[in-house]
């Protein structure tokens, strides 16, 4: 007799939190074996997430009515804390598992020093556990705490190489993160003062367009925009992401930034939904266009490979902002935005990992002197190019489908009679061209004539993992239907 998937789902959700925390705690207590614990833990968490997603999709029709909510310690909201799993969080959990597994495997090759390994693995496992908890949290204050877990471990990972550039980037990153968290917390406090509850679902039921909600929306959005480095609050991103070790950059640009964006989306679809007006959407969209132009310009100007990738994150997140006004006109567009964020995270992580391999081989990442290494390492260049193609949005890649769907939504806006829709369509199409320009800048030296120089030997992990992840990013297009279907299992979404 097999029980229905719904009965197992709550235990599986709490188990995911417990498992990812247990891996982090064991690695902290036993740093000498941290890399082995990390490897097996990463495989276990990855398998668990896949199992959970199978359970979730199997339980599908029931889950559509209400998200699966787990009362921790048996205390239901408003007294206790609830974990909250729906299509949106499930999608991001799977994304996190894929990128995190790839990063873990890559780190096996990248961080081989005995002492560094002991510092890196526990922090990285805490970061991953923090991300899992962030996507599963259904309580406003708990979100603040998980955000702090994520940001403190991320800052520590940026700093842990101990170089001047990394520490200076980390200090900036930490101050920004604390400021963002405090701003977010002030918003939570305001909401709590007004409604007397912290659970997001209960808050959503009680919220209206009053002064408290307005101020809380401003504070929480500003705080999360700081953390997600959304334009115009983006200046910290490039130094922090560009000077961190490659696996850390990959996780920061791929997952941590996406986590903040996820929260923004969740809040604006739930608690702050009554405040979303067309004027607000246009304001956010204009910020997105500015981010797209500024980020691309910086990426075209930067001299270091990892700087280019870091600035392209600013530009690509401009896309996500451009999608905000589309979401207000076309209620279905939010799923496309999430799909775009997922593809971007996969592609961005593989670009950073490939850049890390090249940097390791060459000993630096100055683009002007990288030609020889690029020519000698076709596998890594292919990974860079494949992921880059996905970022550009060429046909048959995940990025193409995401951008196509976005364009479709933009055209729909124009047909619905909105003049400013033209701007969004131009921005989406032009952004793709700009992305093509800076991706070509990265890979072009590989096709010039010149001497080959393989540089430092590279471990097989560092050679193959970027390629594997880039392939996943390119193939994500085929998972588009499944992703969009999973996302429909989000209650309360339009």
């Amino acid at each position: 007799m097999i029980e229905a998937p719904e009965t197992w789902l709550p235990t599986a959700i709490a188990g995911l939190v417990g498992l990812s925390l247990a891996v982090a705690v064991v690695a902290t207590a036993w740093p000498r074996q941290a890399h082995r614990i990390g490897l097996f833990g990463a495989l276990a968490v990855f398998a668990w997430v896949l199992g959970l997603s199978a359970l979730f999709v199997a339980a599908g029709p029931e889950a559509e009515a209400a998200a699966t909510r787990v009362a921790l310690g048996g205390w239901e909201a408003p007294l206790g804390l609830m974990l909250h799993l729906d299509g949106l969080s499930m999608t991001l959990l799977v994304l996190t598992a894929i990128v995190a597994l790839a990063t873990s495997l890559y780190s096996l090759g990248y961080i081989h020093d005995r002492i560094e390994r002991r510092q890196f693995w526990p922090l990285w496992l805490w970061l991953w556990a923090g991300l899992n908890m962030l996507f599963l949290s259904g309580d406003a204050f708990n979100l603040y705490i998980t955000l702090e877990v994520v940001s403190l471990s991320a800052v520590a990972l940026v700093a842990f190489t101990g170089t001047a550039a990394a520490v200076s980037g980390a200090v900036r990153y930490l101050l920004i993160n604390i400021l963002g968290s405090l701003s977010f917390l002030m918003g939570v406090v305001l909401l709590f003062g007004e409604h007397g509850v912290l659970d997001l679902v209960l808050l959503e039921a009680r919220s209206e367009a009053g002064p408290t909600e307005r101020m809380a929306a401003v504070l929480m959005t500003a705080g999360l925009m700081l953390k997600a480095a959304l334009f115009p609050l983006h200046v910290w991103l490039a130094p922090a992401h560009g000077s961190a070790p490659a696996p850390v950059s990959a996780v920061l640009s791929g997952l941590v930034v996406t986590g903040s964006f996820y929260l923004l989306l969740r809040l604006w679809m739930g608690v702050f939904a009554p405040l979303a007006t067309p004027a607000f959407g246009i304001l956010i969209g204009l910020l997105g266009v500015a981010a797209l132009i500024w980020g691309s310009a910086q990426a075209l100007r930067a001299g270091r490979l990892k700087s280019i990738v870091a600035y392209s994150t600013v530009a690509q997140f401009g896309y996500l902002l451009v999608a905000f006004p589309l979401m207000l006109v076309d209620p279905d567009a939010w799923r496309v935005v999430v799909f775009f964020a997922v593809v971007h995270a996969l592609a961005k992580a593989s670009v950073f990992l490939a850049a890390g391999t090249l940097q390791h081989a060459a000993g630096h990442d100055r683009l002007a002197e990288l030609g020889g290494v690029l020519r000698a390492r076709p596998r890594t260049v292919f990974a860079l190019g494949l992921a880059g193609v996905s970022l550009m949005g060429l046909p048959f890649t995940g990025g193409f489908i995401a951008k196509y769907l976005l364009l479709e939504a933009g055209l729909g806006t124009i047909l619905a009679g909105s003049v400013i829709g033209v701007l969004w369509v131009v921005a989406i199409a032009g952004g793709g061209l700009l992305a093509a320009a800076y991706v070509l800048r990265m890979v072009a030296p590989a096709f010039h004539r010149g001497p080959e120089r393989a540089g430092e030997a590279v471990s097989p992990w560092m050679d193959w993992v970027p390629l594997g992840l880039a392939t996943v990013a390119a193939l994500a297009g085929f998972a588009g239907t499944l992703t969009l279907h999973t996302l429909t299992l989000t209650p309360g979404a339009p």
Partner: protein
Amino acid sequence: MNGLAELAHTLAPGLLYPTGGAILFAMGLYGLIRRHHLVLRILALNIMGSGVFMVLLGVAARGEGPPDPVAQALTLTGIVVAVSATAFALALVVHLTRLTGHAVMLPGPPDDDAPVEDISREEHHADGGPAAPHPDQDRNP
């Protein structure tokens, strides 16, 4: 007499202290923007945090009856988080000063095209100490 009762109501702790907390929050923000020394910036963030906690506790003490224990528990958690973040931030600042010789962060985007060492190749880093100091490497013009 009515006016006096109104005043007493307005000045009740449940309204007075949240106002004070909001002022502290704004003041911390002002200090964070204006001051450059990292220790002062960390103090400014702590003052902002205290403002948030004052609002939360003030909100909890509103109305009749005993104060809300959930809000107080949240504040306690928040204070612990703030202390940990402060201690970590101070450690980072000391480390930054050791590497660069200054503990000041000037506004504006830093020069991110400065060369970056690659730890996957660095063997001398194995002692856990920092790499050779780079005097004033990332000071902005």
